[in-house]
């Protein structure tokens, strides 16, 4: 039957051409299905708000791209459709390039509600010009935070008027707090999601680590945009933030200096990094539409969609097939080694944790505020962690 799928997605500046291309190819492949796009929202927050609004008025899109850490919202409100039955119905699913770790990004409470579309991880950006003056080496970038801090501090000394490090801890959803804890093998909450788990050794070490970043002024109390401005103008040696910003940063640097990217330090055996970016979710309720929507999700997140997406944005795909495919992205990554750093992190990928319950988002905010006190040095890291634990625990009930 003829079906017009309604799709919404965020970040039009990045994804407009991507989604249009995907839709075009999709319609070529499935002539019965056409795609109609909603006016894109310009950030994940707005995207989630819009979807919830549409839920109130019953205008939900059939397929919606949402930020990774927003999936839980739609599960809690019973909006998201469980994709497990569709996956089960697929013949050779395991051959389609969706690895276990990538699939886990779309799971909430064990339910598969989303399939990764465009992904990002935290990485570390280096101003190679600056760090080389401080004795750093582009080929052997540091692999622990203490080394990174030391390198940044040395660079700061060696290059007067420049800053050392910026750790972009303010990214929404406590992304880099989670990254720090996860990279040490820690967790946010216990398995029952009733008790705070980041007050353990990993958490303590994480917060101390953050404290050390600012201790000697290696890192200043800056916002991301302030720091990014310093970085691209060549006045900041090391910047740790999402890989999604790579394209923009490269563009703003031009050929002012050489840029290098390094892995986000992973400590423990079971160390992980949380993925960012967005997943495709199905909101359609009608079985016919669900069928079409599933085809669309598969197409968009599959090799064809992933190739289109990756080439046009700074994200990496949630599908491994095209990465080594010369028809796909192989040549692309060779030409853009800085982009490849994120792909190298795929084995450690884990979901972006969202706190449960009606206070889930509030908890994120509370954590953010306590981290703030660490970075502006108004509270000792340990005390901040204790206060944070107490407050979060209270909100968990």
């Amino acid at each position, binding site marked *: 039957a003829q079906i017009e799928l309604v799709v919404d997605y965020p*970040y039009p500046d*990045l994804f407009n051409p991507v989604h249009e291309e995907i839709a075009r190819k999709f319609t070529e492949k499935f002539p019965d299905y056409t795609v109609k796009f909603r006016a894109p929202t310009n950030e994940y927050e707005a995207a989630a708000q819009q979807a919830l609004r549409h839920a109130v008025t019953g205008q939900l899109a059939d397929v919606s791209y949402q930020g990774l850490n927003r999936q839980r919202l739609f599960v809690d409100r019973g909006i998201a459709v469980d994709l497990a039955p569709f996956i089960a119905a697929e013949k050779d699913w395991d051959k389609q390039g969706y690895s276990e770790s990538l699939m886990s990004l779309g799971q909430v409470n064990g339910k598969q509600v989303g399939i990764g579309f465009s992904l990002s991880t935290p990485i570390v950006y280096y101003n190679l010009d600056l760090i080389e003056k401080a004795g750093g080496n582009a080929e052997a970038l540091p692999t622990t935070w203490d080394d990174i801090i030391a390198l940044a501090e040395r660079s700061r000394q060696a290059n007067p008027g420049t800053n050392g490090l910026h750790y972009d801890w303010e990214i929404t959803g406590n992304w880099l707090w989670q990254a720090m804890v996860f990279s040490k093998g820690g967790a946010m909450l216990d398995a029952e999601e009733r008790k705070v788990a980041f007050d353990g050794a990993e958490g303590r070490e994480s917060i101390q680590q953050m404290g050390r970043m600012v201790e000697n002024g290696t890192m200043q109390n800056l916002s991301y945009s302030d720091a990014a401005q310093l970085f691209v103008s060549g006045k900041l040696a090391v910047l740790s933030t999402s890989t999604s910003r790579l394209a923009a940063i490269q563009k703003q640097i031009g050929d002012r200096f050489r840029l290098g990217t390094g892995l986000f330090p992973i400590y423990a055996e079971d160390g992980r990094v949380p993925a960012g970016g967005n997943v495709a979710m199905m909101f359609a309720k009608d079985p016919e539409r669900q069928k079409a929507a599933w085809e669309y999700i598969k197409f968009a997140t599959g090799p064809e969609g992933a190739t289109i997406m990756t080439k046009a944005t700074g994200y990496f795909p949630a599908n491994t097939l095209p990465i080594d495919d010369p028809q796909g992205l192989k040549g692309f990554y060779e030409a853009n080694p800085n982009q490849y750093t994120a792909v190298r992190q795929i084995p450690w990928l884990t979901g972006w944790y969202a706190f449960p319950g009606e206070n889930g988002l509030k908890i994120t905010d509370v954590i953010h505020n306590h981290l703030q006190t660490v970075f502006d040095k108004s509270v000792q890291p340990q005390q901040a962690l204790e206060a944070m634990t107490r407050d979060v625990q209270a909100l968990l009930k």
Partner: protein
Amino acid sequence: MTSPLQPSLAWRIFRHVVLMSGAVVFLLPFVWMVSTSLKPADEIFTEGLRLLPERWAAIENYRRALTDVPLLRYLWNGVLVCAAILVLQIVVALPAAYCFAKLKFAGKRLSWTLVMLSLMIPFQATAIPLYIMLYHAGLLDTLAALVIPFIASAFGIFLLRQFIAGVPDDLIHAARLDGMREFELVWRVIMPAAKPALIAFSIFSVVWHWNDYFWPLLVINTMDLATPPLGTMFFKNEEAGTDFGPLMAGTVIITLPLLVFFLIAQKRFIEGVTLSGVKG
């Protein structure tokens, strides 16, 4: 001959010194805005402050602002929406303001309190219920949805009332005796007499609704119906990095019509209204 009615030379110099420094401070962000809109991405964050770029990217930035999004179309939407809002607001607010300023009637205090209340209540407070109401009216995702919530402008009523209160009663009396009904009196006598206030109101109404961002974002689902700020926001991206050049170019483009509008409107101020047909 310099007129002795004019202020002294010292005063004129003082005036220019004060106003010029004020103007410089007030215009500073705009200077940066225009300057940025001329620069390529890699020149925006360079060391030191430079007004003009080394490599001009003005064409590139403005082209992108105009073509990456159909900004001209959005401008047109903006004009439509602002004009509709303004006209309806005046149509609704002027008679009401007149009532409050010059008439006695039962329930005046109550309705005035209502006006003051709606003046003070932020739009955001009622946004969601309004959204739901518009949905039930089937008006979501139409230009009407951008207009309807703003028709009853408490700000307009309040502003106009204040000025109409200053219109001499005799003038209104004369109009009544000339055979005007209240309705006509409002448009034939009060409207011209309150012209400065109307112009001031128009300026604010247009400026606010032109720049309004949150409400269009809420109710518009079809890109074709978007208003100018939605267009420029296309270039602002926290997640992947903002495209400053086109963003600023877009901002310049959507500010320009307002500038022109203000230049025209402020000329009308000069004329003012001298209520010199009334003695006393």
